[in-house]
């Protein structure tokens, strides 16, 4: 409780705060709305799905009801987890490998223009081969273990990161480059003080794409030849007409992909907290 000592001041204050209260309330309402609306959207789609399966009497080998999927997620959580772990390892390893290679090669390209001119077209050509076509080649080359899946995940991450990183490293302000020359900065200093920090926003937008594509890469790799993993489980469930397990597997896979994406977004926020993003 506040006691008014100075009536005029307090009335001025309360006048202000009434406005502010209304504003705060309106803002809170808007915020609540933003949270609730997506939940309502998802719930209504689930409801529609359940209703359609029920009314149209869709047999379980064609499509499951949402309840069945929920039960499967719970009952077969052990099986789903055992299959998620290899997919996680493959996509994270592929992500790290592919992006690291892209960053290193982008650095080399920026410093040796001749190499960029010679090899950038090669990279573009490799990138134009669809993943599903690349996958069998890599399985033949690398066998049936995790290696080909990691390689596919890495390849799929590599290209967007390379392109973005080269752009990020090269698009520095020409006057900032002249400044570095006036200061007689070495190439190394130009790289670490200017190019690299400048490229971080570009890098992170590529990493966010890579986080979801790496998972796609690993799953596609598992389709080609594997007995374990989200991709393998998808194939098995499909051939067994176990639609509930198929849907559950897909949900587990996309949950992982989503968390991976969120993790990278979080890292981006931490890394670029102080920087004005180029587009903002």
């Amino acid at each position, binding site marked *: 409780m506040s006691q008014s000592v100075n009536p005029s001041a307090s009335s001025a204050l309360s006048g202000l705060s009434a406005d502010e209260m209304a504003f705060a309330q309106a803002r809170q309402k808007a915020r609540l709305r933003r949270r609730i609306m997506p939940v309502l959207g998802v719930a209504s789609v689930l409801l529609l799905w359940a209703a359609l399966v029920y009314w149209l009497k869709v047999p379980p080998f064609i499509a499951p009801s949402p309840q069945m999927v929920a039960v499967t997620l719970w009952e077969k959580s052990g099986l789903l987890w055992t299959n998620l772990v290899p997919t996680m390892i493959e996509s994270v390893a592929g992500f790290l490998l592919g992006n690291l290679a892209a960053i290193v090669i982008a650095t080399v390209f920026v410093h040796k223009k001749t190499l960029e001119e010679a090899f950038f077209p090669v990279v573009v050509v490799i990138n134009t081969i669809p993943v599903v076509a690349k996958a069998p080649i890599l399985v033949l080359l690398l066998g049936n273990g995790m290696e080909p899946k990691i390689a596919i995940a890495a390849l799929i991450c590599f290209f967007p990161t390379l392109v973005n990183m080269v752009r990020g490293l090269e698009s520095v*302000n020409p*006057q*900032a480059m*002249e*400044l*570095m*020359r*006036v*200061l*007689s*900065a*070495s190439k190394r*200093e*130009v790289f670490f*003080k*200017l190019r690299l*920090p*400048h490229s*971080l926003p570009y890098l992170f937008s590529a990493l966010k794409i890579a986080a979801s594509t790496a998972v796609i890469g690993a799953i596609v790799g598992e389709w080609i030849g594997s007995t374990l993993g989200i991709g393998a489980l998808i194939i098995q469930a499909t051939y067994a007409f176990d639609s509930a397990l198929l849907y559950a597997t897909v949900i587990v896979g996309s949950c992982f992909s989503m968390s991976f994406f969120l993790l990278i977004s979080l890292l981006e926020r931490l890394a670029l907290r*102080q*920087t*004005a993003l180029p587009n903002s």
Partner: protein
Amino acid sequence: MAPLEHAVSCQNVTVRFVTEERAVTALEDVSFTVPAGGFLTLLGPSGCGKSTLLRVVADLITPSSGTVEVLGKTAEQARLDRSLGFVFQDAALLPWRTALENVALPLEVGGGLKPDSRFTSPRDLLALVGLSGWEQSYPHQLSGGMRQRVAIARALLGGPRLLLMDEPFGALDEMTRDRLNEELRRIWAETGTSILFVTHSVYEAAYLGEQVLVLSPNPGRVVQQVTVDLPRERSLALRDTPHFVEIAAALRAMLGKVTP
């Protein structure tokens, strides 16, 4: 060491560029000097090569022919000795660094400052340009004028004996520009640094410079080096005096002859 006569001395400097379509002569047979401790403004329409000339002095461009002497040394040696500061058209601050960290950049690259440097404290330099209290702000939190002040502080770190400025206030509004012009005169007087300042504004050229070098375009040639007959202490009100208006009119007439 004998006292320097000239901060900058360019003799018969010619610069030719070869672009993909054609060869361009940016500067032809340009000779001029900046007296030690002087303030010379380079005035000319766009395309007269004034920025190019500034970059020749800064050793960012090598002239096709002619000689350039900066503080009694070659331009390259002057750059390596950290004898020059450069202020660009846009402030060219690093957006991920605070104002203070931006000013401190010259400490971290190119071997840092020379042992006998003046102005070694970034904080003091921010105070000199009137930005005390803004040390921890990021460039996007500063106004355009404030960003140029940070850039000037950065260029002054280490106490260069020659400050090169490439239309630093060209993108600012008139009020900000006037204030910064006044402050630049003060900074020049306080630091004793020679300044070579590029502008396309007649008023700026006359108000700032002890001397004005008028250039003509396509290719850039020297029209005349004019000594500005104004007192050393200058306030903005000076620009409304008949004498100043006369000087500005004379400069504009010189430009009028060279620009069709």
